[in-house]
């Protein structure tokens, strides 16, 4: 058996097991950790498929950045020790199972009927990767797809602005007039103007 197959049969079951574990465990941090391991096994799959660049990106971005922030949030919110909330929506679990089965069946038939690339066979690895995987990828990313690449930067700007606009509302960005408009209203939900706090009640408006 070639080495690739050995690696695959070690990591593929691990991948499935961690995916299931992530859903099954009740502790939020454990679930996040299962997800990290799962990302790692997926990364190994990329490596087996001769996509080392994707392997590195998968680890740097998902395991190294996103999941750390996830853990960060979980730890800061302190939702880690409590029991996971029970079924909030009635029949959610049943529906989820049915839909999951449906999508597996759908994918199976779809893939079986028109297995991938119906119009042309995928090229060989070396043929589509002249000069190695990273530089071939750079070729595609910065030439054929340079425009989506640039649009992504706009997307990130919008996302950053969005987050900042939403986060700033709590702080000193509200004017006196705005605070009066909201006094005793729903702003206390944000801890901005507690009822009876000095300056909010019984003070004449400007």
């Amino acid at each position, binding site marked *: 058996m070639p080495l690739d197959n050995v690696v695959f049969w070690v990591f593929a079951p691990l991948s499935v097991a961690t995916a299931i574990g992530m859903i099954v465990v009740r502790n939020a941090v454990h679930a996040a950790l299962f997800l990290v391991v799962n990302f790692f096994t997926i990364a190994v799959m990329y490596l087996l498929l001769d996509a080392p660049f994707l392997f590195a990106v998968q680890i740097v971005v998902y395991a190294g950045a996103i999941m750390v922030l996830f853990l960060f949030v979980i730890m800061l919110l302190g939702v880690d020790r409590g029991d996971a909330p029970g079924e909030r929506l009635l029949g959610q679990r049943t529906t989820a199972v049915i839909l999951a089965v449906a999508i597996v069946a*759908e*994918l199976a*038939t*779809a*893939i079986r*009927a*028109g297995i*991938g*690339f*119906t*119009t*042309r066979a*995928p090229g060989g690895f070396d043929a589509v990767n002249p000069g190695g995987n990273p*530089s071939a990828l*750079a*070729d595609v990313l*910065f*030439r*054929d*797809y*340079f*425009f*989506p690449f640039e*649009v*992504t930067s*706009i*997307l990130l*700007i*919008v*996302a950053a*602005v*969005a987050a900042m*606009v*939403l986060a700033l*509302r709590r702080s000193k*960005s509200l*004017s006196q*007039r*705005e605070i009066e*408009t*909201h006094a005793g*209203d*729903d*702003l206390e*939900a*944000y801890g901005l103007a507690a009822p009876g706090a000095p300056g909010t009640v019984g003070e004449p408006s400007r």
Partner: protein
Amino acid sequence: MIDAPRVELWAILPVLMLFGGGLIALLASGFARRAAQAPFALFTLAALAAAAASALWLWNRETTTALEGMVSIDRLAVVATLALCGIGAFGAYLGFHYFERDDFRRNEFYALLLFALGGMALLVAAADLIVVFLAVEVLSLALYVMTALTFRRGPTEAAMKYFLLGAFASAFLLYGVAMSYGASATTSVQGLARALTGVGGSQPLALVGALLLVVGLGFKVSLVPFHMWTPDVYQGAPSPVTAFMSAATKVAVFVAMVRVLDVAFGSLAWDLAPAIAVLSAGSMILGSVLAIAQRDVKRMLAYSSVAQAGFILSSFVSPEREGIAAALFYLISYSAAVVGAFGVVMLISGGIREQTGFERFRGLGRRQPVLAALLSVFLLSLAGIPPTAGFVAKVLVFGAATSAGYWPLVLIGALASVAGAFFYLRVIALMAMQEPRGVDIADPSPLPRLVLAVPAVTVVVLGIVPGVIVPLLQEAGVLTW
């Protein structure tokens, strides 16, 4: 060393104007958070005018794709961009008035508006599914925040709901892109069209991809059953934002749907038409029926927009391309009416604590005859009663559906229109026939009334002489690839 890509920036000049304007407005609002917002509003209008002018400049260009096949240059995009700029101008003015009235300075509003419009202008020109996805994300992110911009509990909750369900829909969209790539080894709209034509037999993978794309896009235009967010978000969002997003999102996403369904998956049209018919019928029926039960004007308009999405979609069952012009006309008449309607609602609702229950509108005809008249015109157009544009629009889309042989769909549409007429006319009756109660909190300023007369006139003129734009739209509807 890789070859440099062809960078034909002129092809996306309208998009660049909007994004550039957004960036400038953003920087300015960062340095002048508490400054007066009038310059921002004026700057936004200027950016929109520049974008519209550059879109017009593209009208006579040869139909082709640019930027390595990522965006298309054609008249469909031009018409849609012009419509978007118009809607954006009204959104900017209404927002200016809304925030100015309460001295609620949110100068980021203009940057976000321009970013959203930039995303939409990109979406209508997108010739690659990846660009479609990115554009949808850009406009969605901007809209989520615009929804929450007043930071009251209602808008915040609405934005949260919009965001969570929107993220869910994005996943469908992306999954659809992945499936389409799996079926054709390309993400380009043209490439998909080429790959899928002439391949015999059914193509389940491509079909699944197309359906997932329809789900993802259908969420944005609130088709049943992906409409769950619509009433809450339309009601919770500030009225000018609702006016903007209800019109502009529909224009942008439906035009993108034209490209995806009629061009990329054009060869699967016969397979997809039943699914589209079901979505369309469901939206028409459920939107109309649920709108009847509403006691809040914004909520009612939200459900009506679900029904309107169904009407627009009914023109998509036509595999011939004549449906495109019908859909475009419907989109334009719907946009004018819905922007105007939400604009009037904004003026009546009285300030940032919006009160839009039916009792606010009781006897409005006595107190605010102008506003009542304007709202009546808009509602009549939405109902599709002549001589408004809504009537012509319905005739056109039903004509397209009939010619494709989907007369049951047309029948359902006609019934839904009748049900729709009931709830629109009920509001008009409420305004005209009943005695006013409570205090009048309507906005007395004259300028917004004048501005809102523009969509009213548009609706009436298009209803009487639709010929002024229909030939143009038919030209825009010709997609040569």
